[in-house]
Structures are given as C-alpha cells and as structure tokens.
C-alpha cells in the first residue's frame, strides 16, 4: 500500500517533484538525481521526460 521502493533505494525529491512525477507517470526510482545526496530535481525530471519522449 505504501509507496516505498524496496531496499535502500529511498528517493529524495521535493514534494512538488514527486507530485509532478506522479502526474506525468514517471517512476522517480529509475531517475538518477543530480541534486545533493542524489536528490531528484525538477531538471532531472524534465530530462527524464524528454528522454522518454525521444524514446517513444
């Protein structure tokens, strides 16, 4: 029930980044964060999104 990836792969991200990821159907756990402590930033999210767009 809880949105928690297994093991130690705890994703850091601001609540807004989480919301946007959720809204756009992006799995944060597969993004490599560029922020402090590997935090996923809005830019990372955008990059992931455009990567997905080019792939498809």
């Amino acid at each position: 029930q809880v949105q928690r990836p297994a093991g130690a792969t705890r994703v850091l991200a601001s609540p807004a980044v989480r919301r946007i990821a959720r809204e756009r159907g992006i799995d944060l756990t597969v993004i490599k964060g560029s922020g402090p402590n590997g935090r996923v930033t809005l830019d990372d999210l955008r990059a992931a999104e455009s990567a997905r767009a080019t792939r498809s």
Partner: protein
Amino acid sequence: MMMNMVQAINSTLDQRMAGDDRIVILGEDVGRDGGVFRVTDGLQAKYGPERVIDTPLAELGIVGMAIGMALEGLRPVPEIQFQDFIYTAFDQIVNQMAKIRYRTGGANSVPLVLRTPVGGGIKGGLYHSQSGESYFVHTAGLTVVSPSNPYDAKGLLNSSLDLDDPVIFLEPKRLYRSQKVEVPEEEFRVPLGKAGVLNTGDDVSIITYGSMVPTVMATVKGGNINADVIDLRTLWPLDIETIISSVKKTGRVVIVHEAPRTLGLGAEVSALIAERAIEYLYAPIVRVTGPDTPFPYRLEDIYLPNERRILAAIKRVMEFR
C-alpha cells in the same frame, strides 16, 4: 492627508469617538499625558476624563475593567503601555476575555480593542521590545491584528472597532513615526482576515507582517526579487486562501517575523502549508525570525531580522533543487 501611524490611530480614535459614545479609552497615562507614544494625545481634553480614563498601575485592572465595560454595551479601547507588561493581565485575557462568548453560550460578548505597542527598534531591551503575538494567536477566541503602515492602521482599527469580539491590536512601535503616507480623512475599513499582497511575483512567496514589512519590501525591491509579498495584517484568523494560493503558484516559501522562531507565528503558517499544499513545494519552508533569546538592548541590530538574512533565505529556497 499625510500621516504617520501615530497620527492615523489617533485621528481614527478621535473620529470614531465623536460619533459613538460607547467608545471609551483607558490605560496608564493615556489621558493628560496622551500616552507615552502620544497615540491618545488630545483625546482627554476633547472627550473628558470619563471617556479617556487614566488608570492606576495595574494592567489586570485595566483589562478586567474593560471586559466589564464591554459586557454592558460599551466598546472600550484599553491600552497596555508596552506589550511586555501585558502578562500581568494574562489571566483576564486568556480566561475571561477570550472565553466569555463561549462560556455564556453566546449570550454575552466582549467587543473591545486592546491596543498595545510591540516589537523592537527603539533600543528598549528586554522589557520594551517584545513581540508576543503567539501568546494571543494560540488563544482561541481572540482576533489578532497588526498593521504595517498608517493606512492599514486606520482601516484595520475601524474594522476592529466594528467587531463584536475582542481584538488584540498590536502596533509595531518602530513604525509609529517611520513613514508618512496618504490616509483618507473619511472613515474607511480594511477588512479583517484579509492579507495584503504588496508585491506579486512567481518565484517565491514571502509571508510577513507588522514591523518586518518595510524590511521585506526593501529586500525585494533592492534584490529585484520576483516575489509575492504577503502582509498578513490580521494574524488571526489568518487569510489562509491568499497564503495557499500564492504557495501553489510559487512553490517556495520564506516567512519573516521579528518574534522568536520557536512557536512564532511562522510555525503555524509553515504547518498550515505543510498540511495543505506540500505537493506544491520545491524547497524547504524557511523562517527568518528573531532568535530564541530574550530581546537584547545593545545588540538589538543583531537580533532583528535584516535584509541580509532575508536575502540569504530567499537564495536558499530559490537554489534548492
């Protein structure tokens, strides 16, 4: 007319007293002396010592008497000379003033406006500088107001005098004479419970009130910050809609007040945001406040939040990725 905050409050009291004999003023030195900050200057001469009442040195007597007056249909405006001394009347405020409507099942009310100067900036040290708004905001039943300029002072005081509930009216003493602005001579209201939006921008929401408003505005102008600046004006009940809609727009929040950080009003503002708009936040909610120490004398300038600290906080939330 161009007025400073003292003149705005004084003339508003004068105007309202002229038209409504339910309004009486009471407090230490409010009469012949005109108040230690001259806010009630000239009113005793005009309305007599029965309506502008010099009291003995007992805040609890002032507040208790004002409550009793309000119960009988008057609209008293008690003054506490410095907010720092209000604690000697705290039981009357918390256990009587705030609870009488509730306690009497709505049969009685306590319409009064308790005016008191707050905050630092006049080298007042430990006991002439406190910003105790949290004590009042935490107390259910009180409405808490704090103007940041002469115009709002008049408009908010008029609304407070209309209210059928007790108002704690906190006057930032360091803004008493710091600016003159155009204040209409006719009666007008600034509504309670509605914040002022003094600047609009998309990057960050800066939420502040009272003494810190000019400092925040100077920071925003000087630093060319693309910010919403929200002047709460009414500290309780907060204008939650204005706060939340700004936060949803900007996603970044800095809260600025002079009162100490721990359980300062910023804590509640932050908690309300974290409860109802967290998914819009790109960054931590940062508070810039007075430190959790008593208010000092000689090092006052270090105590008071300043542009440098506010800028640093803005930078922190803006750069947070």
